[in-house]
């Protein structure tokens, strides 16, 4: 049977609004700031073969990695109607531990699920050696509670024992229960919408068009690749260090374009490290999928078909495809940004008139945890924006989330209400953008005062290596982390953890973006 372009568009919109609606429920009912304020979550629909049919565009780092979660749930081999599977194990479908994924098989008669719904959300804490569960770890066991694919809901009944076990192992368990309920509610909404679609279009027709959408995504991506000149393009860059005393860590990639196909080869990357910046392969796939998606026109679909024309080569045991029991807390948030940097750097050699210079290249993760005045535990986590790289189209945006993240900041007024912290300064960092025909965007300067003793963990990069400029543009300024205690000022490492005292001021300056093109203005004229 042929595919009708009209029905294809109708179902494409229907599938993606289903995912959007799941996201709205999750965001509005969640408790983790990461989910509700910063929208660090994703919702997606998969077909019976666990191929992703549609995804709401929430956070790029989840893009290419969700399919592995569904595949891991499927491997159990015992999914029945009314079940839901929870997981966060990076070595079985996850990315890093705070990202909890809930997979629900959807049956319409038959023994096999016709579809799967999945949502992934970044919980504020999943236990482990430091509050916020993004520690400077050296093995996965320190990072928090590891959850292989387990049935959290069986035959429609929530396994309260299992929930109790999970919540006993995390800080602020009551909030995690709220987040879990929000995730369950999101998949339930998805199930309802899917049932309505199947009632309307029929199961076979719905499946047929789900599969046609994958072909559609493939065709669209082939068009994008075909517009890049054939050839072989390489680039390399580094992470400052691994957070455990070694570094720099080198990342290399080679992009081979041949007609409508692309191969991205990461086999030249450094081996996995002792520190926490290792990325599982799922993250590398996400970064590749994001970069190719950047080159695509508006209205481009997000589904598994888009990745068909792209082959990704990684070597197991490297920093972009680490193996158990490597520590991975920072792979998701820092290494993913560097993977984007090297991919864009390689593509800039193929299409120099399109690709911008490097953006700040670090999410500048800050976690502060301790006891608030009322005796309760608190965990504050935030990523801090930086400068975007300049490009042929103009200067880079300032103080903006770039590439693999797009999470919102916590309003200062909300933050000061919720935590024993005071924000003393939050503004752009003048002069941090790289020079060039177009200047890189400015980084951000944020100064936070502790009103109580608390543990501080910083997971940031680009404190040594600068975000590169292209086509003659200068590099962006590196970031800086400082501690101000009374009159005393201490320079902090990019990745560090220490006990802070009430009255301490933490000053974080994030990197600027790289400049683009030669600066033709005379010296001193900005």
């Amino acid at each position: 049977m042929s595919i009708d372009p009209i029905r294809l568009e109708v179902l494409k919109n229907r599938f993606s609004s289903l995912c959007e609606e799941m996201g709205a429920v999750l965001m509005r009912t969640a408790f983790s700031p990461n989910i509700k304020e910063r929208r660090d979550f994703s919702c997606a629909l998969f077909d019976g073969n666990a191929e992703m049919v549609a995804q709401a565009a929430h956070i790029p780092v989840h893009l290419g990695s969700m399919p592995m979660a569904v595949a891991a749930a499927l491997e159990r081999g015992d999914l029945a109607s009314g079940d839901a599977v929870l997981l966060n194990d990076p070595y079985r479908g996850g990315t890093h531990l705070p990202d909890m994924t809930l997979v629900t098989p959807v049956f319409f008669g038959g023994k096999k699920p016709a579809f799967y719904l999945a949502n992934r959300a970044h919980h504020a804490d999943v236990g482990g050696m430091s509050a916020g569960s993004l520690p400077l770890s050296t093995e996965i066991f320190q990072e928090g509670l590891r959850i292989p694919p387990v049935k959290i809901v069986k035959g429609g009944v929530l396994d309260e024992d299992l929930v109790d076990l999970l919540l006993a192992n995390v800080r602020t368990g009551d909030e995690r229960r709220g987040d879990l309920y929000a995730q369950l509610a999101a998949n339930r909404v998805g199930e309802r919408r899917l049932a309505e679609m199947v009632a309307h279009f029929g199961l076979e027709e719905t499946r047929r068009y789900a599969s046609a959408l994958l072909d559609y995504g493939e065709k669209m991506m082939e068009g994008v690749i075909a517009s890049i000149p054939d050839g072989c393009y390489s680039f390399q860059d580094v992470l400052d260090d691994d957070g455990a005393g070694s570094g720099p860590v080198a990342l290399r990639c080679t992009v081979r374009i041949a007609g409508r196909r692309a191969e991205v080869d990461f086999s030249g990357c450094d081996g996995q490290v002792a520190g926490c910046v290792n990325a599982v392969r799922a993250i590398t796939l996400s970064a590749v999928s994001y970069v190719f998606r950047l080159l695509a026109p508006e209205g481009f679909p997000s589904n598994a078909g888009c990745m068909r024309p792209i082959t990704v080569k990684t070597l197991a045991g490297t920093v972009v495809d680490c193996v158990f029991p490597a520590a991975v807390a920072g792979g998701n948030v820092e290494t993913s940004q560097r993977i984007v940097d090297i991919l864009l750097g390689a593509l800039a050699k193929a299409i120099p008139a399109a690709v911008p210079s490097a953006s700040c290249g670090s999410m500048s993760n800050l976690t502060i945890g301790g006891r608030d005045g009322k005796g309760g535990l608190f965990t504050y986590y935030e990523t801090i924006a930086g400068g975007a790289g300049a490009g042929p189209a103009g200067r880079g945006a300032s103080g903006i989330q770039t590439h693999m993240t797009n999470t919102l900041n916590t309003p200062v007024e909300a933050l000061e209400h919720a935590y024993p912290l005071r924000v003393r300064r939050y503004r752009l960092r003048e002069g941090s953008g790289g020079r060039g025909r177009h200047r890189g965007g400015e980084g951000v300067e944020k100064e936070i005062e502790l009103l109580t003793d608390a543990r501080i963990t910083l997971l940031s990069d680009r404190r040594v290596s600068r975000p590169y400029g292209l086509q003659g543009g200068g590099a962006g300024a590196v970031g800086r982390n400082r501690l101000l205690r009374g009159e005393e000022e201490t320079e902090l490492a990019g990745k560090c953890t220490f006990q802070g005292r009430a009255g301490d001021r933490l000053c974080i300056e994030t990197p600027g973006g790289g400049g683009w093109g030669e600066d033709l203005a005379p010296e001193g004229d900005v």
Partner: protein
Amino acid sequence: MTKRIDQEQEVFPSHSAIPLIGVDTGGTFTDLVMVRGDELRTWKLPSTPADPSRAVLEGVRRLVGDAPAFVFHGSTVATNALLEGKGACVALVVTEGFRDLLLIGRQNRPDLYALHPRRTEPLVPGERVVEARERVLPNGEVAVPLLAEQIAKIVTAVSKTGASSVAVCLLHSYAMPEHESALTEALEREGLEVSASSRILVEFREFERASTTVVNASVSPIMGQYLERLQSALPGSTLRIMQSNGGAIRPRTAAKEAVRTILSGPAGGMVGAFAAARRAGFDRIITFDMGGTSTDVGLCAGEIPFTAEAVVAGWPVKVPMIDIHTVGAGGGSIARLDEGGALRVGPQSAGADPGPACYGRGEEATVTDANLCLGRLLPESFLGGRMPLFPERAQAAVERLARGARLPVEKMAEGIVEVAEETMAAALRVVSIARGHDPRDFTLLPFGGAGGLHACSLAETLGMRRILIPVGPGLLSAFGLVVADTVRDYSLSVLIPGETGEKALKELFYPLEERARQEMKDEGALEDDIELVFSLDLRYRGQSFEVNVPFSKDFRNAFHRRHEALYGYCDEGREIEIVTVRLRSRVPGHSPAFGGEPRRGELTRLRDSQVRIDAELVHCPIYLRETLPLQAQFEGPALIVEESATHLVRPGWRAKMTRQGCVVLER
């Protein structure tokens, strides 16, 4: 009887022989409706964008000459000033350390997959931002006082920027407004117009509050000049300005708080639609206003819903407004085949210029062209026959697309309509299903020129069984202005525990109530006519989105129920937090009877025609709306044609006239 109220000797429009006029300024047309006793007249004339008051005044004169009138006005002056970047030159005063508050915003980028992420240019550039050395804490305590010499310094710095209008937004000012008040006084003494965030939006979250305040500072002076011009040209008349919340205010208030008028256009339509529905005996409706480039939908479950989450021209505007969801599909939406072989319709639009191919200038196929190809639009009676259409151009445009997809031209035309309707159906789902309402419990109320062409099909998709076509579907916004209440909204962020007692809550409401009563009297209202509605924004402690419920003894329970309806679960054991207390003050507006005497006599058809429905060419009678007699009944398929709109009655639907002149379709 005429009531004389305040020192301006304004007459509050409750009941009198003075004509009531609703004037709605739209992008293309200015619509007017006049009611005087039983007399009802309407007028439509081209808008005059360079000075919108020209069309307004011409229309008013046309209807009542120089006689005094109550003129209810829905204006786009503030909106256009914002969209076109023609607002006043604004300076912004913020707490020291936060000069880039507006620029950083929430630090996210609008488009996730932009190779060159861009953000809207701030309305206030860095050189016009002034920092104030002061600091207030979340509980309202002062950590750093605002000293007199600091105020003097700020006034000097602001004066140097050359700005004529100033926005003041200091951290935690909702908890302690005195610093903002002191600055406002000092700046006003220098002859500057000042918008203080603690007056405009007394709520927490500094970026959204600053954005709303800056938008107000930017558009208020422009609105003020416009209203002054208008009022002086209508010396004997009383002017009332529509707000985005569907209520009217007097010009003096509108000129100070113009941000409250930013989305008043669609608000008028919703008010008019709800009033029409209530008269016809329905109070649960989903409105569907289809225009040229976009479609506005809204849901009323017994009352008009509000939201405070709008974003206009890239800027959050957090004043309460009627909750309307807009999607980029309208009559002018362009159809194309994309690289992957899917048929896309919109968001690109042919707009008014060049317009759909059938208007004579455009080349690309639009939804209007598709409707024409299908025989659902009659070329000879479009806009009462005043606008010629070119069916052959529509045919050619759709044919080009059909060839690309190797489909028959009729199939392509139906496909364009189907894809556009899918976008609209998604919008209807967003306002109903996604917010916990079952569309099957509602009546669909289409308006705008093209709403009636798609109503049956959308109702079928959503399982709805009744459609109400109001009188004058093309003039509903102007109708809405005439019946609008006088409304003012007040809010205060409190962030207190849900266990807070009733007495303590009443004390929090008290200053709001006092201000509301005073300001309503200033609006010309009589004490006895003022209605006050108290509500609370609640959430489970730890959440970030609030749910608004009426203030009652039982508000906690009401919150759990609403949370469950909205999101599918509630947790009665969990602690509730009261984030914001809200007060709406309202004086009911007019309820004139529209529609006039229903016609008697036989049902006569204009002629018959061939219309394509569900892949078949069907024989379809055409009725003229104005000739439909009372109690007329007929079955679909049929077309109902009137001056401002065309309606398609699909097979399976039965049409009948109501006493009020509405057409009800049922299946």
